[in-house]
């Protein structure tokens, strides 16, 4: 079933891609092929392979239970928050929280969680910023 949905999704994706490709405004100084041809070829392959996947599906993959799915979704939210907060809170603080969250969700105890968060954040800051001179996001506190 997953593969059938995936295949249909591929066909829809290809259709959307074709519509977007046809909407490309051509420049008056175009070459013989133009900017649309190659995307259209790709869309054809995409649709064709999508159809094959939908018609001849593989055995069902092992999907996680809802709780585990929520776990991944929560991690995605945390990482998005991390990306957004990075320029606001500064590298060290944001990274400490994000790393600690991941460690906690992977099963670390409270002490280890704090240690991984602080250790990762400070370790990266020292190695990459202080030693190697990479510029990292600066927060209000300057780090």
């Amino acid at each position, binding site marked *: 079933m*997953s*593969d059938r949905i*995936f295949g249909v999704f591929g066909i829809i994706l290809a259709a959307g*891609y074709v519509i*977007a*490709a046809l909407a*490309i405004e*051509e*420049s008056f*100084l*175009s*070459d*013989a*092929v*133009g*900017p649309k*041809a*190659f*995307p259209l070829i*790709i869309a054809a*392959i*995409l649709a064709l*392979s*999508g159809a*094959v*996947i939908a018609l*001849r599906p*593989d055995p069902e993959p*092992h999907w996680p239970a809802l709780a*585990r799915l929520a*776990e*991944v979704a929560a*991690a*995605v939210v945390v*990482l*998005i928050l991390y*990306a*957004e907060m*990075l*320029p606001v809170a500064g590298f060290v603080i944001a*990274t400490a929280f*994000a*790393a*600690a969250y*991941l*460690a906690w*969700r*992977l*099963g*670390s105890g409270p002490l*280890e969680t704090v240690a*991984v968060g602080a250790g*990762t954040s400070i*370790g*990266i800051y020292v190695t*990459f910023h202080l030693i190697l001179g*990479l*510029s*990292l*996001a600066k927060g209000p506190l300057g780090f």
Partner: protein
Amino acid sequence: MELLANLGDGFAIALSWQNIGLALLGCFLGTIMGALPGLGPSNGVAILIPLAFTLGLGATPSLILLTSVYYGAMYGGRISSILLNIPGDEPAMMTCLDGHPMAKKGLAGEALSLSGIASFVGAFLATWGLILLAPQLVKIALLFGPAEYFALFALAFMTLGGVSSTNQAKSAFAAALGLGLATIGVDTQTGVPRFTFGEVHLYDGLDFLVAIVGLFALSEVFIFLETRHGGSDAAGRKLTIGKLYPPVSMIRQTTPTMLRTSFLGFIAGVLPGAGASLGSFISYSMEKKLVDKEGTFGTGDPRGVAAPEAGNNAAAGGALVPMLALGVPGSGTTAVLLAVLLALNITPGPLLFSQNPDVVWGLIAALFIANFMLLAMNIPMVGLFTRVLMIPSRILMPIVAMVSFVGIYGISGSTFDLLVMIGFGVMGWVLRKLDVPLVPIILGTLLGNAMENNLRRAVTIDNGNWWTLIDSPLAIALWAIAIIGFVLPLIVGARVKAKMHQRRDEEGAISD
């Protein structure tokens, strides 16, 4: 002897303190990444590329660092295969078959050192193969026009699916997806924006480094979160190594095996679409057919340890040949290495050898040096790396995730790129669940623009005549190989692939 003169120049470049240090660092990190299940050569290299890039390393030093990681990972993969019966990365899968039984018999130290020697022999011979074969391939590539290049790219995509996936439709889908992603941004020929939906960030196109790190590294973190695999595979097991040096008789017994499988592995590596995994697989299978008269393979036969290790390391070297000489990588990790070259604005292919000989020969010399370093690290110091296996992934994975973010943020300093990377991470996770190979996607985003430009150049030169694509014997030959490469696995490949991907889990999607 032009070749030796070139090699001499290469050593002059590679033997600077910085380059030796980078090779050492790369070998060390690579062995660790190879040894740890969950981190393989392709995601290991993927995480380090943006860092090498943002740290402002030049082309030669970056390549030295990253190919050392690549070679190192090929060495390191065997450690957990032998000690834990869990392959550290995909190419090391065949090493489990005889390596772990040897360890059970109390011969772990012998198995580790023997496989270290086999790795060295394979990689050493393959580096010579690279020196001898790449310049010949360059001579052929100089005959290529745009139509031939277009056919060559098509060949790369069509054969890549042959072994990297169990389902050809899915690898075709992945390739089309990657090529489609590459078309996002301003069209290089006419200057019109395509698929940008008015988003200014997309005018430059998607940064392929962002895609690579998201697909390879971040999706791995999600896999671990999903399975809540937070412990270490080595937890609760005693990792005894014992005697570290194999008896001379064992080395003598396995020498012919090593030499044969090095050759075979190298060929497998050079062929498009094959990689180190296939190299170790066919090496093991052939040796089993050839020398296993008493049926000892699978029960801890030293030859069964030497064969896949020599094979996969030789294939790793062989896979560099098409990447450097043609600009078309044949395996997952070399696709990622191609990203390094492209990120540094160096076009691999025949011109690389004439315009940047310092890069090519410096790299080759560094490979020789790295090989000796790896031999030293992997035999006397192997105990150090077995301790790495004890690190639980609940500590390792947050570090992997955060280093990925640092690398990508370092390139552009924009939150937008980080969000795109998370998007690719989620996409990678879903696609791995569905057993869609990720390597064609990467290859598509890397080669998409070059492929389209060659197509348009070829057709434009011939005044809009599309038949020009199959107008020369060379182009026809390339198309024929491409079609055979795509169709053949449909007929005979199913059996081989089923065997190779017995562990039909998410790892299969990033096979090398």
